[in-house]
């Protein structure tokens, strides 16, 4: 494991060049200790350059100063729109290979400390009209409702049971939520490639009562989208793998257009394809209400 702050030789030529003291022979001998080398005569502009690099880490490529938590925070805080609408086709594949298809629509909106999500299934017929409403409250437990046409009214459901499967998919309620980086201890593991995209690989161990003992995430450097997650169960065995198989920009916002969630133990797979994505449409608050659920 490479220590934070140390640069791997040969990978970042630009920085290596800046920090090669042999290049900066000069009159000023007041060189910070970490630049000490054979030639202490470092010119003023070299120091200025170093200061600039420290102040603007974007000038250098690579994880020179970002910790695991910072990387995860950059992912969590990336621009994903004030609100979003997705039309999704979902395919459930069991171990025999037989498939069940579902269609759903997802509406989501940020309200400072509150994220509201409304999901409704539009196909097939036996599940059409089923709706899910979630108000993710930052400080407290989430408020969640499920509407089943057979019930005729929205029912309050237990949000703390996040280990339960979301409508028989390979996603649990915990997986459906945006996970605040403060809920985990993050460790930068390495840089790697996934699907030919350079990534930061971060291990996250939950501080709270999660169904997983840890998650290993591949954070795409360019988009800061998490494009792969390996989920480990309480015994430490790998349980599920989430992958983004197609990443693209929609309305200028990076979108995981195709994803898979594979349960390695159950040998079951959920594939999702974003048919339509729209951001910053000014979604009405009324969408995220109980009366809208009843209107399905």
């Amino acid at each position, binding site marked *: 494991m490479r220590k934070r702050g140390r640069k791997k030789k040969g990978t970042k030529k630009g920085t290596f060049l800046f920090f090669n003291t042999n290049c900066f022979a000069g009159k000023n001998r007041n060189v910070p200790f970490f630049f000490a080398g054979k030639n202490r005569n470092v010119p003023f502009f070299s120091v200025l350059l170093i200061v600039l690099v420290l102040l603007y880490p974007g000038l250098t490529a690579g994880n020179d100063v970002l910790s695991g938590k910072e990387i995860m925070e950059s992912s969590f805080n990336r621009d994903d729109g004030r609100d979003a609408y997705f039309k999704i086709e979902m395919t459930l594949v069991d171990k025999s290979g037989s498939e069940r298809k579902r269609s759903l629509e997802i509406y989501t909106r940020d309200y400072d400390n509150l994220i509201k999500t409304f999901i409704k299934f539009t196909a097939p017929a*036996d599940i059409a009209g089923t709706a899910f409403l979630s108000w993710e409250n930052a400080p407290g437990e989430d408020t969640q409702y499920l509407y089943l*046409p057979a019930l005729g009214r929205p029912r309050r*459901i237990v949000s703390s049971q996040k280990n339960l499967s979301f409508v028989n998919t390979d996603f649990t309620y915990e997986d459906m939520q945006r996970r605040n980086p403060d809920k985990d201890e993050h460790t930068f593991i390495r840089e790697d490639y996934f699907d030919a995209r350079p990534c930061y690989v971060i291990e996250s161990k939950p501080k709270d009562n999660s169904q997983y003992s840890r998650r290993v995430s591949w954070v795409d450097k360019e988009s800061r989208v998490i494009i792969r997650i390996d989920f480990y169960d309480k015994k430490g065995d790998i349980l599920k793998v989430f992958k983004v198989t197609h990443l693209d920009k929609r309305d200028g916002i990076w979108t995981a257009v195709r994803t898979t969630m594979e349960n390695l133990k159950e040998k079951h797979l959920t594939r999702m394809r974003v048919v339509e994505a729209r951001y910053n449409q000014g979604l009405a608050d009324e969408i995220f209400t109980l009366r809208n659920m009843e209107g399905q």
Partner: protein
Amino acid sequence: MRYLHCAIWKGNNFLAGVVIILILNAGIFLPGLYGYAIKDKDLNLAWTRKGYLKTRVYQDAKDDTPFEKQEDIDARFRIDNRIELKNLDALLQINLEARGEALINEKTNKDADFLLKEAYLEIKKPGYTFSFGRQTITWGKLDDVVILDRISPQEYNRFILYDKQERKLPELMLKFDYFLDNCQLEGVFLPLFKASKLKFFGSDWAVYDHLIESIQYGDYSGLVKNTIGRIKLEEKDRLKENTAKNAQFGLRLSGRLKDVDCGIYYMNIYQDMPTLREKTPVGNAVKRFLNHPTDENLASLVGLNPMDEDLTLIEEHPRVQVIGVDGEGVLGNFGARGEAGLFLGQPYLRGDFSYVRKNSVSIGLGIDHTTSNNIYFNLQVIQSFILNYEPLFPDEEYTQQITSTLTKDFLNGSLIFKLKDSYNLSYNDWMINPKITYKFNDGLEASLAGFIFEGGITTLFGRYTNKDLIYLEVEYKF
């Protein structure tokens, strides 16, 4: 009462009703008819359809009556049309249903019905919603139980073989919702009265089964047959009139208080289930015989030499006021809910079977939970008590009922096992309803289920002790 009586097809052909509905839905030759969404750009119109074809074949466990064979077929075809007129912020909902029944007897009886179900126009504006037309409404927080959910009448022609939501009958109403920041005020106005559908005679699921027929075709004297044959039930004349005097209304104020969803209710409505009211004091003897059909009570009735007026009972639907509250929240890993109602002027029968009205209270509490193995259970307890109690038939002063539901799915939701039961602790009668459903792809599902009823003859479930049955259901949803 039929909403759309099409005499040409009566008693004829269920499939004809299906064809009519399909034709009314813009033709059977349009591609993608089922679940087809039409969008008209000029009107900004979105028209979606969905529906089902459901067929049940019932098999009674016992051959307990010569008046109905043990096999029975019930077919229903329904199509729901949802037309959104986005430019007008409006929604038009029109739902149609065709039904066919075959009660297999010595002469096979068939009946077909063609029904207009929900049909209403809804206008949605920021801050309020207004709808008018034939609608159903669901109030209260408990499942499959009626405490506060009293606005919409229900169809009990097959008792509770269908779930509450399926039994509900749409009726003409004006509904208004006003949305405030943290709460919602909902009001309903029903200009006309519609009773719940309930048979008293002539069906396996009638309150008094085939009692009249068994006397008429049994080994009884001519006098007995004549007396019993003249027993008649009348609907209350006034309630059949379409006047404002029969109007009903209800109000609900709902909101959230510290993570609990709660509501306060007031309703001024007619009792949807009829209570039989005597026209003369001899009518009490009629009711005594109907509820306890013993030879002694029969002889006692016949011995009174009753006139037609004595043998006529009125299906009374008194006006009742309901004040209620409900709430729903989460307690740890359990969902919790409850509702309570004070009912002013509920109808009862005294010990001598005379008609009386009293006030009563019902309180229901429920919890539900899903285990880590994905087993879902729902338990509800209802406690009722009658104020200013005097000996009543068959109601006791304090009554308790427990209902429960257990659900477990297998094969990633393809195979579902469900067990529902209801137990009246006070009267020691109960019902159990197991059901296994397999979901194929593309909307097709098949179920095997049964109902078992036990208890005393005068109890809710006990009167159907001999009606235990199993049924096979095939449903295609589109």
